């Protein structure tokens, strides 16, 4: 029809005959396949929790004490052992008008104050479990609890993995 038409000003073209094949109509009733999606996400979350739990347990069993590790942009700037601390220790990161203060006490650590806008790192509060983190995304600062001990390869492991990621 269009090929035989000599008129150059035809603007309306007929829809392709197979157009319906590419049309998607939404169903809006919850069906069993939706339950499959929900189940899959649940399994993913569960698997992740299990994996993180296993890695935390492994590193703790091979170690004798916990350490608070502070990293900025992936590089470690401060490390302090959390066992046997009688007085609170503080460490301050400054630069570019940014200021973030970290505090470590016996068995736990926290971000005391930060000049960042969302304050999520401060609101996280005290962390004490191995693998727990307080993160300040705007300043790329991570406070983490590490398990360290006799012959455990945990700290050097994490350091090398940082190097791999940053390169």
């Amino acid at each position: 029809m269009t090929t035989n038409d000599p008129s150059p000003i035809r603007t309306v073209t007929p829809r392709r005959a197979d157009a319906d094949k590419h049309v998607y109509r939404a169903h809006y009733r919850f069906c069993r396949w939706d339950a499959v999606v929900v189940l899959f996400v649940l399994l993913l979350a569960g698997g992740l929790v299990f994996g993180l739990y296993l890695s935390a347990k492994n590193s703790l069993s091979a170690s004798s004490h916990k350490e608070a590790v502070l990293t900025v942009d992936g590089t470690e700037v401060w490390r302090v052992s959390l066992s046997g601390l009688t007085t609170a220790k503080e460490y301050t990161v400054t630069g570019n008008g940014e200021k973030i203060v970290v505090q470590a006490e016996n068995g736990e650590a926290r971000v005391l104050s930060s000049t960042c806008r969302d304050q999520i790192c401060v609101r996280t509060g005290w962390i004490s479990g191995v693998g727990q983190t307080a993160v300040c995304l705007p300043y790329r600062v991570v406070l983490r609890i590490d398990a360290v001990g006799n012959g455990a390869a945990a700290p050097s492991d994490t350091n090398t993995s940082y190097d791999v990621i940053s390169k």
Partner: protein
Amino acid sequence: MRYSIYDLSRWGVLTALALALSVTETLFFPSALFPVPGMRMGLANIVTLLSIYLFGAVPTMLIVLIRCLATFAFGGNLTSFLFSLAGGFLSLFFMLLLRNRRVFSLFGVSVGGSAAHNIGQILIACLLVRSWAILSYLPVLLLISIVTGLLIAALSAPVYKAVGAIRPGGES
């Protein structure tokens, strides 16, 4: 891709809606109650969800891109721009995959999209601070994303019913 003024104006309306929703969300979300970074309702996902059915893949990509650029221009910072871009496109990708299987309803597509949104954001966060430590937030975010995904689908269904009746279906 062939499109008419009619299509163009409909895309524009949905882009504006996406923008309004994401701005509303950042203004009014009580983030003090949830100390989990990146936790959002993802209201702008309503638009993505509707758009992949009404318009198809390419216009939706444009809508998501323009939404991210515009929120960036309205006083976001580069970090949040990267976050919304990564989350937006990963969730769009998974929503399209689920849509193309045709067996999932709005609910399944929405939950998949929400979960992908969070995964994208966490991956970007891991990249930014160069550590996998933040991965420990992901399980909580995934659980929340199931709830928000279902909520978003429940909100989108009546809108789709109303709008889809005018001219249902989208190509590609």
